[in-house]
C-alpha cells in the first residue's frame, strides 16, 4: 500500500512539474515555487536523520575502540558548533564564525589543495605515450598546456590557434557525443521513475 501511494505521488508530481515547465502562467510558477519550498522543508527533516546517524555510528565505533581520536573530533564538532551558534549566534565575531573561518575553512582549502598534486600524479600516468591514441592525447595536452603559458607564444604565435581548434572541434565533438548519451540516459531514467517502471528508489524492484 505504502509503495502504491509513493508511486502515485511520484507520478502526480512528475506530471505536474512536466506541465508547469511549459507554462509561463503565474499559477504554474506558484506551483513550482511551492514544490521547491516543500522540498527544502523535507530536506531539513532528513538532515536530522543524517545527524542522528552520524552520532549513533560514531558513538558505537568509539565503544568498540575503532578510530577513537577521529570519531571524538567528529562528535565534538557535531555538538560544539550548534551549541555555540545557539548561545552566541552566527554573526561575525562570534565563536561559531571564528571556528568556521579559522578551522573549517582552512581544512577544506587544504583538502582542495591536494587536488593540485593529484592532478600532477594522474597526468603523469595518463600522458604516457604507450599507444597511438595515448600519443595523440599527450601531444594535444602538450599543445593546450603550452598555449596557456607564456612559453607558448614564444615558440609559435599560431600555437594558441591550434589549441583553440583542438578544444573547439575534436574535443568539443567528443564531449557533445558523451553529453547526448548522458542526456538520453537521464531522460529515459526520469521517464521510468515518473511512469513507475523504475522502483529502485523505493528500496526494491517489486
Amino acid at each position, binding site marked *: 500500500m505504502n509503495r502504491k501511494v509513493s508511486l502515485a505521488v511520484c507520478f502526480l508530481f512528475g506530471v505536474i512539474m512536466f506541465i508547469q515547465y511549459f507554462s509561463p502562467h503565474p499559477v504554474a510558477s506558484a506551483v513550482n515555487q511551492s514544490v521547491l519550498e516543500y522540498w527544502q522543508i523535507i530536506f531539513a527533516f*532528513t*538532515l536530522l536523520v543524517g545527524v542522528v546517524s552520524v552520532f549513533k555510528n560514531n558513538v558505537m565505533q568509539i565503544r568498540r575502540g575503532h578510530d577513537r581520536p577521529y570519531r571524538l573530533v567528529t562528535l565534538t564538532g557535531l555538538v560544539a558548533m550548534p551549541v555555540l551558534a545557539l548561545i552566541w549566534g552566527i554573526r561575525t565575531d562570534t565563536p561559531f564564525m571564528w571556528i568556521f573561518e579559522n578551522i573549517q575553512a582552512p581544512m577544506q582549502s587544504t583538502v582542495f589543495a591536494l*587536488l593540485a598534486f*593529484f592532478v600532477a600524479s594522474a597526468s603523469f600516468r595518463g600522458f604516457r605515450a604507450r599507444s597511438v591514441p595515448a600519443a595523440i592525447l599527450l601531444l594535444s595536452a602538450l599543445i593546450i598546456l603550452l598555449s596557456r603559458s607564456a612559453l607558448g607564444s614564444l615558440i609559435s604565435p599560431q600555437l594558441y590557434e591550434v589549441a583553440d581548434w583542438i578544444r573547439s572541434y575534436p574535443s568539443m565533438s567528443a564531449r557533445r557525443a558523451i553529453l547526448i548519451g548522458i542526456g538520453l*540516459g537521464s531522460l529515459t531514467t526520469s521517464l521510468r*521513475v515518473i511512469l513507475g*517502471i523504475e522502483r529502485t528508489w523505493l528500496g526494491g524492484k517489486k
Partner: protein
Amino acid sequence: MLWYYLATTVTHNSGWFNADKLPTLIAAIVSIIIVLYTTYRRSSRERFKVREIAGLKAVEEAIGRATEMARPVLYTPGWGGDIQRPTTIASMNFLSIVAEKTALYDCPLVYPTHDPVIMAVAQEVVRESYARAGYPDRFRSNNISYVTSSQFGYAAAVDGMISRLCPASIFLLGTFEAESLILAETGNSIGAIQIAGTDSTIQLSFFIVACDYTLIGEELFAASGYLSGDRSILASVHAQDILKVLIALFLIMAVIWSTIAAVVGSTAEGWWNF
C-alpha cells in the same frame, strides 16, 4: 519560424503555454512515446542485445578479489547529486546488483554518502538486495552512513575510510565534482580495483586516468540493465538508441541543408534553428 508560427497560432493570448518551448514539448512527447513503446512492446525487447562493456564485466572480478583478500568493497555515489538526479537513480540500480553479489560472497559493503535521503534509500536498496540474495542477516545498516554535506569534508572522510579500511575494490558511480580525483587517486594509491562512472564530462577525464574501468556517458544508465538483465532497463536502453539515431539523422540533415545554403549563398535562417 514554423515552430513559433504554430505555437503562437494555437496558443495565442492563452498565457498557459510558452511558445518558445514547443520544440522541447514535441521532443519530449516523441521521447515518451518511444520509451513507452520499447517498454511495453515485448517483441521489441526480445530482439535487443547490449554490447559488451569491459567495466561491467569486471564487477564480478572486483567483488571476488575483495572476498579473496578479506577486504571490504567501498561504494561512493559522489558528492554532487541528490536523489532527484537520474544519475543517482542509475547508481542505486548498480548498487543493488553490487550489494546482491557482496551478500552472496559475504563481503562487507561500505557506502558513505553526503545526503541523508540517499542514505535512507541506499539502506533500503542494500537491505532488499541482501534479502534477495538469501542472506538478510549479513546486512549491516551502519555500513551505509551519512558522513557530511560539505564537499571537501566528504572527500576527506572517504579518503580516510579508503586509507584505513584499504578496500580491495572501489565503485565510484554517481555525480562527482572536484572530489572525484581526490577519491580516485587515493584509491589508486592503495592498489584497489576501481570502477567509475559519472554524468560530468570533466570528471570523466579524471576517472579515465585514475581508475581501472570507466563507464562513459550512457553506459552508466545501461549498466544495471546489462548486469541484471532487467527488461524495463534494457528497453529504455533500446529507446535511447532509437532517440540517438533520430538525433543523428536530424544533425545530418541540418549539416547537408546548411552546406547547400552556404554553397548557394542563401542567408535564410535554417529550419533547425529553433
